[in-house]
């Protein structure tokens, strides 16, 4: 028995009803390595890892941990075997402190010994280079802090096989860097780390080996040093790919939206936007970059009429051949009627814009159901629309009535973006449109946005991936702490430049 192998999976199969999520997966994870698990949406990565962490039990196949056969029946069994999983959606109690969350569910006497727990948390932090305050309440933590806490939680329980499910999907580049340095420290300590991700450059940066799944089947494991992004992407989708985002030159550019001195204050009285001014033009894609929570959401919501703005704010909308309109003070419906569409993809993908229990048809009429008869619903038009979105964007769904929450993330996002585009808006705002999507679907979405741009739509694209912003957009507006830090030409700007603007108002010139 090779002692270096920490986890060995043999012939793992898992079915859900008629769907086979994993079929005969055989692979291994070594001690002291970072293994990237790569695959498109629905390729069975999360299911496979859930079987390691005791959430599901395999229908067929064997799992060996440290050379011994193991039957992982529950997350508790997984903990006992030293396996800890950090899920995409954090499982933390908001009103508890970091330390309380860590000790939650651990065996022990009647009395909590938080002091000891805090000591241990501090020593874990020191060892791997985390920064955390054991007394901080979870509700006041940023996404990155919550993730750190989740990792500490599994380390506290003595895990030496860590599974991270898309850990960077919600992090800024700086936070990602910090996470990676922690991962490297853990690897140096002899831990096995499995990281599920879609981002190829991250795979290249952090992993030692890459295991690739496609449609539930194990394809191959590559040494990262022998692979490049292109070979990985092709192994993942099983066909040749061109990894270039198209960027047509803007044509017939006209001013559509003129935002002046836009300010917002949150419900707690904290300013979220301060004097934001910019113009958006039809026929171009304006990217919006910034560390998460720097006012991106408030900016888009203000334009869509969903945020209360401070006095003095002005958003002038100039339609084709019509009078200029002031959007501030208009209701969300009036603004939509003017042709300003917003699709915001939240972290849970469904919460803003779609109703999970409804099918595509019912979701299509979400913003247009008010038209027509004053009392009764008309399902004919939304049904036709759903059918055309399904065809045009290649949405995979058993039927138009299947609840959208059953669709995979990529398909959910296609439904969301497809509906907004179908309204033929003249201003299309999308936030995090490719959040958590695989390569093929992401490119499909970029193509959709480019098509809109060519039609003369003013596209505002809020994104997380700076590389994509630089490749896709014409101009990039960088937000920093609710202020416009800078507006740069995406064709000439560099990643470093944007990074500086993100962290300091005025960026390199300040």
């Amino acid at each position: 028995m090779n002692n270096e192998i920490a986890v060995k999976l043999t012939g793992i199969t898992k079915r859900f009803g008629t769907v086979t999520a994993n079929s005969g997966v055989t692979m291994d994870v070594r001690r002291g390595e970072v293994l990237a698990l790569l695959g498109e949406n629905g390729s069975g990565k999360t299911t496979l890892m859930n079987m390691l962490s005791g959430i599901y039990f395999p229908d067929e196949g064997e799992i060996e941990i440290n050379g011994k056969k193991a039957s992982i029946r529950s997350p508790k069994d997984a903990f006992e075997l030293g396996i800890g999983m950090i899920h995409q959606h954090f499982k933390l109690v908001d009103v508890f402190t970091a330390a309380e969350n860590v000790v939650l569910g651990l065996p022990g006497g009647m009395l909590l010994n938080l002091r000891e727990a805090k000591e241990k948390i501090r020593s874990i932090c020191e060892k791997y280079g985390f920064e955390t305050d054991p007394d901080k309440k979870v509700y006041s933590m940023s996404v990155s802090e919550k993730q750190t806490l989740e990792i500490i939680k599994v380390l506290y329980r003595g895990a030496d096989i860590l599974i991270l499910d898309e850990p960077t999907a919600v992090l800024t580049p700086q936070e990602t860097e910090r996470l990676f340095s922690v991962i490297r420290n853990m690897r140096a300590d002899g831990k096995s780390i499995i990281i599920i991700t879609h981002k190829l450059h991250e795979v290249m940066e952090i992993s030692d080996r890459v295991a690739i799944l496609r449609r539930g089947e194990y394809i191959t494991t590559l040494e990262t040093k022998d692979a490049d992004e292109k070979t990985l992407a092709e192994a993942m989708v099983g066909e040749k790919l061109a990894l270039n985002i198209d960027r047509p030159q803007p044509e017939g550019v006209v001013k559509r939206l003129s935002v002046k001195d836009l300010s917002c204050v949150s419900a707690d009285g904290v300013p979220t936007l301060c004097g934001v001014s910019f113009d958006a033009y039809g026929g171009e894609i304006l990217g919006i970059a910034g560390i998460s929570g720097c006012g991106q959401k408030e900016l888009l919501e203000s334009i869509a009429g969903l945020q209360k703005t401070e006095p003095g704010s002005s958003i002038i909308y100039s339609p084709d051949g019509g009078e200029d309109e002031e959007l501030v003070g208009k209701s969300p419906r009036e603004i939509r009627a003017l042709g300003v569409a917003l699709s915001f993809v939240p972290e849970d993908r469904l919460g803003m814009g779609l109703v999970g229990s409804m099918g595509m048809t019912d979701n299509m009429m979400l913003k247009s159901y008010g038209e027509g008869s004053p009392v009764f619903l008309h399902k004919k038009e939304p049904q036709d629309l759903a059918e055309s979105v399904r065809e045009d964007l290649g949405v995979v769904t058993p039927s138009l009535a299947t609840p959208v929450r059953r669709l995979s993330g990529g398909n959910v996002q296609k439904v969301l973006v497809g509906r907004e585009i179908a309204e033929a808006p003249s201003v299309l705002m999308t936030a995090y449109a490719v959040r958590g999507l695989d390569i093929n679907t992401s490119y499909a979405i970029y193509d959709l946005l480019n098509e809109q741009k060519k039609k003369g739509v003013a596209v505002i694209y809020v994104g997380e991936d700076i590389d994509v912003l630089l490749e896709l957009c014409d101009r990039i507006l960088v937000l920093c702490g609710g202020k416009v830090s800078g507006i740069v030409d995406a064709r000439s700007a560099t990643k470093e430049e944007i990074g500086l603007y993100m962290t300091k108002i005025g960026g390199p010139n300040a």
Partner: protein
Amino acid sequence: MKNEKTREPLLRLAKRDTVSPARAVAVRAAAIALALLFCGIFFVCVTDSSITDVYAAMISGTFRSSITVNTFFKEACMLLIIAVGLAPAFKMSFWNIGAQGQVLAGGMAAAMWLFYLGNDLPNAVILPLMFVSAAVGGGIWALIPAVFRVKFTTNETLFTLMMNYIAIQLIKFLRITWSPIHALGMISRKSGTLPSLFGNANALIYVIAALAVILMYVYMNKTKHGYEISVIGEAPNTARYAGISEFRVIIRTAFISGAVCGIAGFLYVSAIDHTISETMGGGYGFTAVIVAWLAKFNPIFMTLISMLISFVRTGSREIVSRNTTTLDSSIANINIGIFLFFMLGCEFFLNYKVVFRGGKETGK
């Protein structure tokens, strides 16, 4: 490592993805059969009768005469009307536990007309007045918690529950103020009694129940209001993004929910009790909560469940009446408890599958 570690667990639960309609019906039918079996066994234990006697008594207690049949239908219909009223509120994730209070509020509003003007106004005038004010009364009773929920994000479950007790105390107060009721029980007035139809005093109750089921089905499934209710209930943030006013929809739906319960109160006053009392409806306001939930807000299922509960109730009553020395009327509640236990329990088997060691998790 212990040896058992390497073995598959003896029992494990697998979440079902979807349940075929046939299976869903079969599981529910099995639950009903088991519930009826346990009700029977329970009666065999507390009386000296054999199990066949018990069922014979339950059936004859329900279907023996037109009077028993009418009682059976009347109770089923009242339960159904209240459950139908709760459905839109629940669909909107507005946990209205105050149906009892809304029934009482509607009853009070109706009884007010009856008490003061029952001798002066003809039926054609007073009944519509009673009907409308009962609906408004019940509606307001639900509206108050709704306003607080939207404006101050109070918890509507507690709020609607507390509103029940306010209604109960108000009724006690009114019974004393309107001392004739206190003394005599019934408000006897020339008009204000729901007329018979085809010689059946309950016929209008059946008509109203049927209308309530049909109208609510259409309202929830075919209208824009119904669509807004579903969106707000499922995804409040999405509703905000779509420009649906949460305030307007919650207020409107809570009012409609309370109004339908208020109409049940009107029926109690005008057709069944002819008075008001704090026990009006015999706690159906709470039973209806479970009926609405079990039926997943589907009016057809609500009809079936209401009939079953009514059957258990009338059947139990018959057995109690045959054993008055040993049994108490509250036995009916024990049986309804048994029935609900099985009905709620079967939901578990619809959502999960128990897999034995070596079994496959390939549930349909």
